[in-house]
């Protein structure tokens, strides 16, 4: 196995002091998985299931109140295993954008609003590439954009002059500027219209093909996962409840939650009534006992209320955490 990121029993909680009371939000509550070289890995789940936190932890961007309670995240730059949390300031800074980079959720405000994009690109380049003149770096940036099918003209503009879709694509270009091994994409298509979504997906696919990068895509939209990911995990309330090859998951969803996610998707030409999963995702502050999904599950059993189901291997590449699949 050629892992590029491994996550081992990760527990990342937010610890808040509210009105003199200590509150723990169990955003990532014991997650294990490995992302392989040269694949697009999807993480699906509703808002508030902890998927963004998981990305932050993978990116080793830990600012209070987020704290790691247990577990490790490993990087594999140049083939050796590195504990991401133990990286010191400068070492971590150097790995960023060269080994691992990050596509933000909304690109609305991630660019310096008062500088032309050229400057922003140069800032990122200069901080990682030494010994080059500004002109050379700018050429690098231009070539990169061209390779991704974007017009280098955007560099001369200001961020607010771009449409949402364009801005998101420029953000992707920025994130891939230094050909990182791993790209984390947090809801890269949310708030974009379908046409722009398509453009972004197209770009991500191109990036992956071009640079052989590993992409970890986090989104609640199963359509996106279907379109782009090779393997995916379904997250619910801070845990992975199902993991497998994307095509397997869409073909044979094992977890009731996964089924809801897939079946509720409307299709043109299909006017049959579709239902969402009933109820709302649970608060990460007050998790229900046992399987977190049991209050919304149509197949709930007594066992589900009492004990948390472990992630079980169903076949070579398909795992699920549900008492229904027990035995």
């Amino acid at each position, binding site marked *: 196995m050629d892992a590029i990121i491994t996550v081992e029993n990760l527990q990342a909680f937010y610890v*808040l002091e*509210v*009105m*003199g009371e200590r*509150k723990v*939000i169990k955003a990532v509550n014991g997650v294990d998985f490995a992302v392989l070289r040269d694949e697009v890995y999807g993480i699906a789940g509703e808002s508030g299931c902890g998927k963004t936190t998981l990305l932050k932890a993978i990116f080793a961007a830990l600012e209070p109140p987020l704290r790691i309670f247990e577990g490790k995240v490993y990087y594999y730059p140049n083939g050796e295993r590195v504990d991401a949390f133990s990286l010191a300031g400068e070492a971590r800074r150097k790995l960023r954008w060269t080994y691992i980079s990050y596509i933000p959720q909304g690109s609305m405000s991630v660019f310096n609003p008062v500088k032309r994009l050229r400057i922003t690109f140069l800032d990122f380049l200069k901080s990682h590439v030494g010994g080059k003149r500004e002109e050379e770096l700018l050429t690098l940036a231009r070539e990169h954009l061209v390779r991704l099918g974007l017009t280098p003209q955007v560099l001369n503009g200001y961020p607010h002059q771009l449409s949402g879709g364009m801005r998101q694509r420029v953000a992707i270009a920025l994130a891939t500027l230094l050909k990182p091994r791993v790209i984390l994409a947090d809801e890269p298509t949310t708030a974009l219209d379908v046409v722009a979504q398509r453009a972004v997906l197209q770009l991500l696919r191109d990036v992956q093909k071009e640079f052989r990068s590993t992409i970890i895509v986090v989104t609640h939209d199963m359509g996106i996962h279907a379109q782009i990911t090779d393997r995916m995990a379904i997250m619910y309330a801070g845990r992975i409840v199902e993991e497998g090859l994307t095509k397997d998951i869409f073909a044979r969803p094992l977890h009731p939650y996964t089924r809801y996610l897939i079946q509720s998707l409307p299709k043109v030409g299909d006017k049959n009534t579709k239902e969402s999963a009933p109820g709302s995702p649970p608060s990460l*502050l007050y998790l229900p006992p046992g399987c977190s999904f049991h209050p919304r599950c149509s197949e709930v059993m007594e066992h589900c209320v009492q004990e948390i189901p472990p992630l079980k291997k169903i076949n070579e590449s398909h795992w699920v955490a549900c008492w229904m699949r027990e035995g």
Partner: protein
Amino acid sequence: MEALRELFRDYRFAVGFVFLVLLAALAFLSFFSPYDPVRWLQVPRDEPPSWKHILGTNAKGQDVFWEATFAIRNSLVVALIAGLVSRVVAVLVGFLAGYKGGVVDRVLMGVADGLLVIPLFLILVLVAMLLREAMTIVNTGLLLAFFGWAWDARTIRAQILSLREREFTQTSLLSGNSTLSLVSKEYVPFTIPLIFSTLISNIAWAIGMEIVLAILGLVRLEIPTLGTMLQWAITRQAMLLGHWWWIATPLALTVILLVALYWLSVSVSEYLDPRMRIQRIGAR
């Protein structure tokens, strides 16, 4: 009360608040002063601090401590009048200009800009001279209030402009709210931190301005304020004569007052900052 308890967890708020309470208590003490603050030769002159006169006495034959109680009271009154009255104007103008837009906005902001552009100090001195006999505590406060609203009205307007674009404005309209209740219900919670912080900076400004006017002798000098206390101490050379207690007292009170206000302002704005409030609500 919940809010207060939470605010007190911030040492800046706690210290600022305690300072302010102490100063207010000091101001309140003035009602029990054994001396008439206007009268001279009440006590032996130029005496350094002692048990009898804990902050010494000045060259006018006044007990510096008791004089300071009046000074802080009067200065607080001036600053509060200036701050509150100008707040009312600033809020009204800011909200009106921001919400109504168009001609109303142009006219109001024109007036505000006009006030900002004319060298304020020139007008202040001119008016202070004109009013000299009438430069009582209240009038000084009102005068400062008159010149203190323009900038803040602009800031408030800017915020209203951005709030006006937010969707909940429309929800509120759809809920049948009138303009007045829309503004008061939807915008006030967002502008309160701003209003509060401008209030505090305006109060600080008014205190500073009162001192400037007093040092120039443009207010009624027999009424003790922080400014007139400094003015007397300066003109009677308390500094060079080594009567440090006379000048240090109003100076220290000014510094403490403004530091307390600054801390309160920083702390409360942080507390009232919508982002933080939303976070707190979300974390419940």
